[in-house]
């Protein structure tokens, strides 16, 4: 079953993203919100995702608020698309 992983902590001060990447299944997705969007500009962090069929998303409001330009691997989506995304996966895992 596919899982959408929801992250909101900066990957530079916290191990959530690193652990999440180890748990990721081939059909899983990762949604970045809050300070987790800082991961989107780091090619090293997003590289494992680009190699697989997994998908990486970032919330538009949080990206714009921080003045970021995420890499090509990141799909920037708004809140309604975020809601739709949660329905496209079998389950959602929030790394709170």
């Amino acid at each position, binding site marked *: 079953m596919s899982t959408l992983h929801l992250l909101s902590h900066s990957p530079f001060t916290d191990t959530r993203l690193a652990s999440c990447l180890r748990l990721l299944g081939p059909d899983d997705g990762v949604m970045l919100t809050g300070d987790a969007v800082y991961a989107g500009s780091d090619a090293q962090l997003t590289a494992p995702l680009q190699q697989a069929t997994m998908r990486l998303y970032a919330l538009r409001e949080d990206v714009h608020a921080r003045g970021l330009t995420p890499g090509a691997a990141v799909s920037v989506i708004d809140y309604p698309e975020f809601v739709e995304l949660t329905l496209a996966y079998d389950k959602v*895992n929030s790394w709170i």
Partner: protein
Amino acid sequence: MAKSMLIISRQAPWSGPGAREALDMALAGGAYDLPLAMLFLDDGVFQLVGAQQPAAVEQKNLGANLQALPLFGVDELYACALSLAQRGLDPATLALPALALDDQGLRELLAHHDLVVTL
């Protein structure tokens, strides 16, 4: 049929309420015979260290509640092998019989549960 749930506990035992809340959720679910599994990940593996003395920091003992998991029907206990190794913990000396899983094992565990909660 009830949906299966994986509870991922990734906080150290005395750093905040996270460890106890994950455990309370597991015990409550177990009491209602829900199909549950529990995974100790990251600092969560520190909960499995034996002979802890939380009274020294004026905390209640989490260990007693952990030991109650099998009594509440929560027999599927797993620990992340890498988290254990990084923290110098030997899977053979844990206070609970948690099965150590490598990354592939973690992915399979996550994939075959209906729901997942991380605390």
